[in-house]
């Protein structure tokens, strides 16, 4: 195994760095003639509205600030700097460097969203083209780039479902959104935010939608169904056309959670499966970096009959001239202050053009190859199992269970994850989907060379060996990361919770 040791700098807080009167940056001063012409601005501020003392920010020089944040970066782990990042459902694929280079172009970074369209033709053209390609991949007719994240896209989808039923005078009746028990947590949260009730349905023995259960809950009260396919077990639900028919028959809409789109680009399309609304996470499928939690981008695609509900502004093209239109018959309005997360969108656009249709298809194929390779090498390793749909292939991800290990040694999925960190490998997603006991959800992506896959497999085998020979070691992990196990209870307890430096100072004088 790799002998890994993460950096630990014993780094102070930025507030603990620097000295009085040090500065890290100079604002361009007023020109002398301007200074002479102007009164002291602070004397003009209305009585009582002047800030009495400046905010207590750090007083540090440029190099102190730079070093501080570089130290902290070295105590972090990214897909481009690590070994393998098999975090299921998150599609941690390579974030290409050329994307970043182009996204730093001043003609993208220094453009104001309210500039006249005549001054932003390049940006608008890129947005128009990206939308076209996104619709091609998903098989939809129209769409919006406004949502800033996947969950935000889900919310837009829910608002469109709401607008559609309201338009037909059926919103009072259609109060329920059906969601399988294997769904991402954002699905029920988005449906509730949109004013709906959620109806959870169980999965069948293959991890797919239980058709009988679905039939038993649909009716005139059904507003729609939210589903990801392949589902969170990494299994493609072959009954999808039937599912869509059942929901459509009662007047509901089909919403596709595109979190797992990376499995199927160029292989099959949500639009052809019967979905009416789709979101995609550009920060998963289309290689834009997650940035430690964001920014993402969650464009939404719809079938033609729902186009009138899309958010405004809408990008039009007329003989190569692009414009923004605020007129839209039945628009849901706006969901973002401006046009969405444009900078990530440019990165996704770069990515699509780098691979082309053919390369995107091959990316999906290799993501599926990689995950099946891992599943086939680990499913029979002592302590692990591959529940649901025995013998069926997985798509882009596979969910192992560590139930046997847990029962036999006390080592749980959580411990397995933490031990992997000691080998310089990021943990899989644990305890999700909820329908798998002791779940370890593994998504290697197409970016990983065979060597990284083998390294991960070796590490998982090693953890299994240790679980049965030296469980204490596994349960004590991690040992080689910047810090060991953290006291999460202390972090959340009403008596000790501390969310700011000021509070920290008051607790630790």
């Amino acid at each position, binding site marked *: 195994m790799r002998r890994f040791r993460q950096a630990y700098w014993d780094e102070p807080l930025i507030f603990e760095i620097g000295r009085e009167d040090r500065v890290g940056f100079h604002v361009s001063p007023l020109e002398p003639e301007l200074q002479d012409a102007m009164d002291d601005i602070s004397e003009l*501020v209305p009585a009582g509205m002047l800030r009495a003392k400046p*905010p207590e920010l750090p007083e540090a020089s440029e190099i102190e600030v730079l070093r501080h944040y570089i130290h902290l970066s070295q105590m972090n782990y990214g897909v481009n700097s690590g070994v393998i990042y098999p975090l299921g459902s998150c599609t941690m694929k390579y974030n290409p460097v050329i994307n970043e280079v182009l996204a730093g172009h001043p003609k993208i970074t220094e453009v104001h969203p309210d500039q006249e369209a005549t001054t932003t033709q390049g940006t608008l053209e890129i947005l128009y083209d990206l939308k076209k390609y996104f619709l091609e991949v998903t098989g939809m007719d129209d769409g919006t780039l406004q949502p800033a994240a996947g969950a935000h896209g889900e919310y837009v989808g829910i608002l469109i479902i709401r607008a559609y039923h309201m338009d037909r005078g059926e919103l009072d009746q259609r109060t329920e959104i059906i969601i399988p028990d294997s769904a991402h947590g954002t699905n029920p949260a988005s449906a509730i935010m949109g004013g709906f009730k959620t109806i959870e349905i169980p999965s069948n023995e293959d991890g797919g939608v239980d058709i009988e259960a679905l039939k038993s809950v649909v009716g005139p009260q059904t507003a729609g169904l939210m589903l990801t396919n392949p589902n969170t077990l990494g299994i493609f639900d072959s009954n999808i056309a039937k599912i869509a028919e059942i929901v459509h028959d009662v007047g509901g809409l089909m919403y596709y959670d595109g979190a797992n789109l990376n499995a199927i680009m160029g292989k099959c399309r949500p639009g052809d499966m019967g979905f009416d609304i789709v979101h995609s996470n550009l920060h998963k499928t289309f290689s834009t970096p997650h940035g430690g939690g964001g920014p993402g981008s969650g464009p939404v695609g719809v079938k033609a009959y729902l186009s009138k509900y899309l958010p405004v502004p809408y990008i039009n093209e007329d003989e190569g001239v692009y414009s923004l239109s605020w007129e839209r018959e039945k628009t849901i309005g706006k969901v973002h202050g401006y046009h969405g997360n444009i900078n990530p969108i440019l990165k996704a656009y770069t990515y699509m053009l780098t691979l082309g249709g053919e390369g995107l298809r091959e990316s999906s194929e290799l993501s599926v190859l990689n995950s099946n390779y891992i599943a086939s090498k680990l499913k029979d390793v002592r302590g692990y199992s591959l529940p649901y749909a025995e013998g069926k292939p997985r798509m882009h991800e596979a969910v192992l269970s560590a139930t046997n290990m847990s029962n036999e040694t006390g080592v749980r999925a959580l411990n397995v994850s933490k031990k992997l960190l000691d080998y310089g490998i990021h943990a899989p997603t644990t305890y999700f989907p909820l329908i798998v006991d002791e779940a370890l959800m593994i998504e290697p992506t197409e970016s990983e060379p065979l060597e990284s896959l083998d390294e991960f497999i070796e590490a998982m085998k090693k953890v299994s060996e240790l679980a049965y020979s030296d469980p204490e070691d596994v349960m004590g992990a991690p040992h080689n990361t910047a810090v*060991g196990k953290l006291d999460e209870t202390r972090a959340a307890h009403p008596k000790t919770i501390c969310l700011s430096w000021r509070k920290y100072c008051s607790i630790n004088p």
Partner: protein
Amino acid sequence: MNKPHPYLPNSVPEIKETMLEDIGVKSIEDLYSDVPDELKFNRELDIPGPNSEAEVKRLISGQLEKNLTLRCPPFLGGGVWPHYVPAVVDEIVRRAEFLTSYTPYQPEMTQGMLQVIFEYQSLICELLGMEVANASMYDWATALGEAARMASRLNRRDVFIVPSLISSKRFSVLKSYTDPAGIKVVQVDYDKTTGQIDLEDLKDNMDSKVAGVYVENPSYLGFIEENVDAIAEIAHDSKALFVVGVDPTSLGLIKPPGEYGADLVIGEGQPLGNHMNFGGPLLGLFACRDDPRMMRQMPGRLIGVTDTMDGSRRGFTMTLQTREQHIRREKATSNICSNQALNAVASAAYLSLMGPSGFKELSEVVASRARYAMRRIGELSGVRAPLFNSFHFKEFTVKFNDKTVDEVHNNLLDKHLHGGLSLVEEFPELGESALYCVTEMHTKKDIDKLVAALGEALEE
């Protein structure tokens, strides 16, 4: 593809063969056997490429060249503003360990990101005069929507009061968040001379249904809302929350909302070290009081400080996660998952570089430049600037008496200068008016050029 793609290490045919053999299938198609034939996509996606890196660079740079090069930053604000981003900030957010990491779900391995976000929360608290800030929302507009919903959850009331002079875009987003929750949004009138909130109208609208009273400082049209103590009192007398939206660059000069009774503070963090990027990614600020009831109703992530189990080291971790969708699902306070973490990193670095004196200087320089521009433009004939008799920070209204905004602005564009944001459709009652914005990026020369060009446009 005829040869392996640089992004696809296992596209080498021999590797594929070996892996398929190990899995025990003949072809990749066998792995897609669950996809019914009638659903299979039987052609190649119609997306150009593959293109080499050099080809892509040339292609996209060429497209971007179609954006007009302006002679100086646009005189546009309203929610996104042209401010300088120090080189160090860009350097820090390019670090692959930050840039290419996921949400820090494994705290032992992601202390770096967790500490930065903790610092970000702390720095924002200092700036706003508040006690608890979250790790970010998408932008100001969605933060406003979440604030209205949070207020409504806290006091179980369903009316949210906002000013009439509010950005129509922000208002539309607010409605997208409040309508499905059954929250009614009411707009209060303003004083026609000063633009200030009409306190009598506000009082008339207060009752036991009001969940929150929202004001912006500076207001959307750039002036400082002065009667904040009175507004806070009116809100609190009715047991409603006082919610304030800020442009944080004003807070080196203007009193922070935490010092005048705000319960929730939101705003746009873009000007703190983030580029405009055609309006995204932005950075939604969101802060509340050190009150357990409020913290439990906060949307979004919170990072807390703790110790390692062995007590040997200080550490950071996500906390109060039982509010969030990945734990609570339909009972979560919000559906937000991905946020704007990297923009928060940029803002932490920015505020650390500026320091207290630098930040004060920033606010003063911005306000002084704006004041100079406002004075010079106001001296032109056929123009009124500003429309309201109040103290303005960096944005101000300009009304053209004899020309339309479009006429004047097209004339400016011919000279590669971009004027302010037209208010003609948003506020017809203000006539042919525009909202101009001046920051530290606009030199005296830039402002003088603008004034000369406006003068010429008005004479034509």
